[in-house]
């Protein structure tokens, strides 16, 4: 069965420090991968999505970047964190094959709560 791992669960970082959040998927190949951010009590904002290794689409201009060095690995990074980067970050995957027909059910990790102080 497919599983998605996202870590760490919580993170407290000082302003100006770097960030690296990692997400890996097991049990499937060639998935679509997503990074979302959720502000407290709010909806999910799509930050990045990827349909293949090295293929990253950015949805909003921001202080963050994403990379996909391997098929099932998606990394969210920042060189210098801002206070406004605080939030709940969620990684998700969907099956590329079924997404061609629009059956894009997404499977989420448990999230990383980032607090920038």
């Amino acid at each position, binding site marked *: 069965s497919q599983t998605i791992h996202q870590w760490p669960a919580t993170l407290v970082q000082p302003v100006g420090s770097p960030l690296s959040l990692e997400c890996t998927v097991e049990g499937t190949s060639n998935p*679509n991968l997503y990074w979302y951010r959720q502000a407290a009590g709010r*909806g*999910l904002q*799509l930050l990045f999505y990827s349909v293949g290794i090295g293929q990253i689409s950015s949805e909003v201009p921001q202080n963050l970047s994403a990379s996909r060095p391997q098929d099932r690995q998606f990394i969210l990074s920042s060189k210098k964190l801002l206070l406004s980067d605080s939030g709940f970050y*969620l990684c998700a995957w969907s099956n590329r094959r079924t*997404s*061609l027909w629009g059956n*894009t*059910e997404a499977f989420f990790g448990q*999230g990383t709560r980032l607090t920038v102080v």
Partner: protein
Amino acid sequence: SQQGEEDPQALSIQEGENATMNCSYKTSINNLQWYRQNSGRGLVHLILIRSNEREKHSGRLRVTLDTSKKSSSLLITASRAADTASYFCATVGDTGTASKLTFGTGTRLQVTL
């Protein structure tokens, strides 16, 4: 940017009552999905309805889709305390963005005993 807007933002009902949540979206879609999120956790997929479908059922869930009004509703019948969570709609576009899943703002449902 948010594609969907859920209404109401918050809903409080008693156990056994039905809960109805609505979602409106802006652009043409291939399908619309509903997800549930328990506090501080990841989202769990509930149900998917395609643009050529008007109604779909799954257990105590009933979803309708009106593409002419660009809206959908999620009905949870005979609600239980365990249904307490936030519920989000999400859309997949139909114009070459089949991989892009965009979420709405969510409805917080509180079911009391």
